[in-house]
Each structure stands twice: as structure tokens, then as C-alpha cells.
């Protein structure tokens, strides 16, 4: 922007209002982003809190979700979400960790060059596409192979969710492994440890907080997912009971909100309860994020000792 010597004064003057304008714009945008988030949160609160006042706790925290009969038990939905998410993590976490170890520690360079972008592409697949894939390809397999009455089950949802959260888990875990100082590996190898012993006894334990973070972020990704889950879980709002529940349809919190919000009367109890479910979901993801943040904080303050 600046012009040389003699014209300096002339050149600078108009640049100041410009700078001021840009600065103000950035400030306005920044504050409005905060403002929007606050507004959304207030909206969620004002629409969701009445649910907890209008519906007796005995009803709200019961196991029966029949809004047409004024039964607003959210437990089946919470446990549906929990069942699908936890099963998804049981599948995705070991797979993600092994993949990260493979990509970071074992794979030859050329394989790493191929795998990393591939994993990133995986993250970009729209969830509707995955849901469609789950309905048409995975569900029949689940039905045939596991002999379930329907292919639209908690397990089907969990597999799709596992697939969706894998890229997150892999890339965060991989970063954590990458951050392990070379000196730990050297020490281990110099002790006569094999490459595998070094990976499992030194590198992975040293990266444990980052790996835990990968799990939490993957879980956050899974619990909030709506579209794919709605398409493949069968959406029956029943309490999951026993181990075979995973081969039965379930309904998650997100699917409930998405499916029913379009049909409720604005301001009705049902409407407020759906927002109340949103609040619960928000609280859960907030707690997960809080756990991640505190882990990152611990990691940073411990890093100083190295």
C-alpha cells in the first residue's frame, strides 16, 4: 500500500481509514460470530427448558417415548444414542489406533503417501451417502449374516458411525504418535527392544493422552451424527435390553429431533421436549469437549518437563 518517500504523507492518509474499516469489519464479524453462538444457545435454552417444567420428571425420565399419548420418556433415546456410539467406538477405536500405528510406524514411505490422502478423502464422504450405502449394502448383510429380523439395527448404525469417526481417530492418534520424541524410541531400541516392543511399550503409552483425545473426538463426531444414523438404525424408540439389543432397531436422540421436529406444533410440549433433548445432547458433547480441553491442557503443562 505504501508509496515511497516524498509522497509518503499523501499515501498514508487514505490507507488509515481503509485500515480502520478493515479492522472494524473483522471486529464486527468476530463479535457477531460470538453473538450468533450466544443467541443460538439462548434460543436452545428458552425453547428447551420449558420441557423440564411442563413434563414431570417421572414422565420425562421414563422408558416410554409416545409423544401422541403425552409420554415423553427420553431414556430410550439417550440409551439408543449411547448404545450406537459406544458400539461404534468399540469398533472404530482399535481399528483407528492400529491404522495410525501402521501409517506412522510401520508403513513404508510410499504407502504413507497413499494412505494419508485416502483417509482424508474418507472424511469427506457426505453422511447421506454413507446412510444410503448402509441401507442398501450393509443392512442386508447384517440381516443375512447375523440372522437379525431386520437389517436396520443398532449394529448397522454403529458400523456406519465407526466408519465416519475413523478419519478423526486416525489423524489425531497419528499426530499423537508423531509427537513422541525420537529419544524414547532410541532408548527403547538401545535396550534391545524389538520394533514392536518399542511401539507397544514405549511409543503408544507415551502418546496415551493424545490417543485418548482421538477417542473422545471420534466419540463427539459419532454422537452428533444424524442423517446416516436415521437411515440405518430402524428408529424404534425402545429401551435396548441385553446384548441382543444391538441386533435390534434403536432410535437416537439426533434422529428423534430430525424426524419429529418437522411435524410438531410450534410451542407444544412435544416441541419443547425435542429442544430439551437437544439441550441434553449439547450437555453431553460439551462434557466431552471439556474433557478433551482439559487433557490438552494437562499435556501442554506436562510438555514443559520434557
Amino acid at each position, binding site marked *: 500500500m505504501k508509496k515511497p518517500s516524498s509522497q509518503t504523507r499523501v499515501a498514508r492518509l487514505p490507507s488509515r481509514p481503509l485500515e480502520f474499516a478493515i479492522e472494524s469489519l473483522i471486529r464486527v464479524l468476530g463479535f457477531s460470530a460470538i453473538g450468533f453462538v450466544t443467541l443460538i444457545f439462548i434460543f436452545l435454552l428458552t425453547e428447551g427448558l420449558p420441557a423440564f417444567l411442563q413434563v414431570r420428571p417421572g414422565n420425562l425420565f421414563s422408558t416410554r417415548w409416545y409423544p401422541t399419548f403425552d409420554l415423553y420418556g427420553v431414556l430410550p433415546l439417550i440409551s439408543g444414542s449411547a448404545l450406537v456410539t459406544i458400539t461404534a467406538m468399540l469398533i472404530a477405536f482399535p481399528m483407528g489406533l492400529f491404522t495410525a500405528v501402521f501409517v506412522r510406524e510401520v508403513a513404508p514411505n510410499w504407502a504413507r503417501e497413499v494412505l494419508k490422502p485416502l483417509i482424508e478423502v474418507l472424511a469427506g464422504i457426505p453422511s447421506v451417502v454413507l446412510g444410503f450405502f448402509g441401507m442398501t449394502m450393509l443392512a442386508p448383510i447384517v440381516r443375512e449374516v447375523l440372522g437379525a429380523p431386520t437389517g436396520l439395527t443398532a449394529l448397522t448404525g454403529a458400523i456406519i458411525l465407526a466408519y465416519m469417526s475413523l478419519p478423526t481417530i486416525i489423524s489425531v492418534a497419528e499426530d499423537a504418535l508423531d509427537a513422541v520424541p525420537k529419544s524414547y524410541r532410541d532408548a*527403547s*531400541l*538401545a535396550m534391545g*527392544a524389538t520394533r514392536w516392543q518399542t511401539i507397544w511399550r514405549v511409543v503408544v503409552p507415551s502418546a496415551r493422552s493424545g490417543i485418548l483425545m482421538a477417542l473422545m473426538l471420534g466419540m463427539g463426531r459419532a454422537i452428533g451424527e444424524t442423517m446416516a444414523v436415521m437411515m440405518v438404525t430402524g428408529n424404534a424408540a425402545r429401551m435396548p435390553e441385553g446384548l441382543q439389543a444391538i441386533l435390534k432397531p434403536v432410535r437416537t436422540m439426533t434422529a428423534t429431533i430430525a424426524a419429529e421436529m418437522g411435524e410438531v406444533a410450534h410451542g407444544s410440549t412435544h416441541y419443547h421436549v425435542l429442544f430439551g433433548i437437544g439441550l441434553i445432547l449439547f450437555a453431553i458433547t460439551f462434557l466431552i469437549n471439556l474433557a478433551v480441553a482439559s487433557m490438552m491442557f494437562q499435556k501442554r503443562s506436562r510438555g514443559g518437563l520434557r
Partner: protein
Amino acid sequence: MMERRKSTPGTKIAVEHLNVHYGKKQVLADICIEIKERQITALIGPSGCGKSTFLRSLNRMNDAVPGARIEGEVRLDGENIYNPRFDVVQLRQRVGMVFQRPNPFPQSIYDNVAFGPRILGIRRRSRLDEIVEQSLREVNLWDEVKETFRKQNALTLSLGQQQRLCIARTIATRPEVILMDEPASALDPIETLRIEDLMRALVQEYTIVIVTHNMQQAARVSDWTAFFLTDDGQIGKLVEYGETGRVFTNPRDQRTVDYITGRFG
């Protein structure tokens, strides 16, 4: 086994015509040296002359360096460690290493010391307890950590304590040789003296090879001194090797005289 030092110590490691290249660059040329059993051998020389490279070729830690090429023989008790049939894992259990920067694992003190024994397949708790205590005692760390060593993270120790822990971790598997690459360069003078005393105690049982840029240290602790220097082509060579007293008082090579009198390096 508190065997007294023999007047004519045997050879533990015989290095013959060792050449090391990193890619196109030759770092060490034609190194021949006999490292004596249960003696401390100090490697001195200006930085960049290949002391660390030489040390790392004694436990094959250079193998993992991309582009490294090693020629010649390194015979441990007469057996060439670069023979393809020689097992690297076993080699490193016999030839332990302590690094320049203390590098304990971010685990408990106990788990650090038990690392090597566990790799050897020792699982029994009482046996591990015994080894851990014994090793910590040998490096004079036991009294400082005996209340907390099972839970305390090794990274919370002071640097000097961390380095002694690393030595304890190394000796927990009873290696025959301990390689130390400037083990005290990150430590304060008091901790440095402690490490030196420790080496004098350990040499009763172990063959020790130590890299140091500190000539007083070499003179104080070592029995034998090897002086490395890069030649005109920036290739590391062994200039002089002999008993420490002789090398320091009556060096044969003019370059050694110049170095120990501080004229360069």
C-alpha cells in the same frame, strides 16, 4: 563379583578397519582400536569428528540411520557384531547405551527400570522388585526415591536424577558393556561428579566407553583415552590411543598435544 582390575586387561571389543558413511559423506575412516575389558575408555575430540558415530557403531544404533553404511569389523568377545547372523536385539542387551540428554520414558521410575527385564521376559513381581531396588541402589538413586518410585513419573525427577535413572535402566539387564555419549553434558558440576564417581564404581563390573568433550573429565575418570580428529577431507580418524596417563602427559602426536593444551577444538 568384585574382581580386581587385572594388570593386563583383556580385549572386550576389537574394532578393525571401521569405515562409516552417511550417504555420500564418509564420517569415519579406518578406525582400529581395542577396547579393554572392565576399563573406562574415553573418546575425546572436537565436535563433529565422529565420536558419537563411532560409539553408535558399537551397538549398531547406526543401522537405523537412513543411508548409513558401515564397513569393517567390530568384534565383541571375538564375534563380529556386523555378521548377518549376529542378533541385534541380543547385541543391545549385551551392549547398553546412555544418551547425552537424559531420556527416561514418561512412566513411573519403577517401570523405567523394569523395562529391560520385562523385555527379557521376567514377569515375577518379586524378581522385578528385587532388580529395580538393586539397580536404583547401584546408581545411588534409591535413597532419594525409595518412598515414591512405584508411582512417581520419571519426568518429575531432576535432570541429574533422570540421568542416573537412565543408567539404572541400562544396568538392570546386566549388560557387559555400557556406552555413554556425553552423559554429563546436560548436568551441573555436582551431578557431573556424581556420574563420574558412579562410573568408577561401575567399572568394577562393566566395560565402559564414554564420549566426552571435557578433557578434565577424560583425565579424571578414564583408564584409556582415544583421540579422534577430522582430517583435511572432514573425515574422522583415530589420531592417538593409549593409557590415559600416557596420552595426557606424553602424547605422541603433535595434534594431540595441540588439542589437550587447548590450541584448537
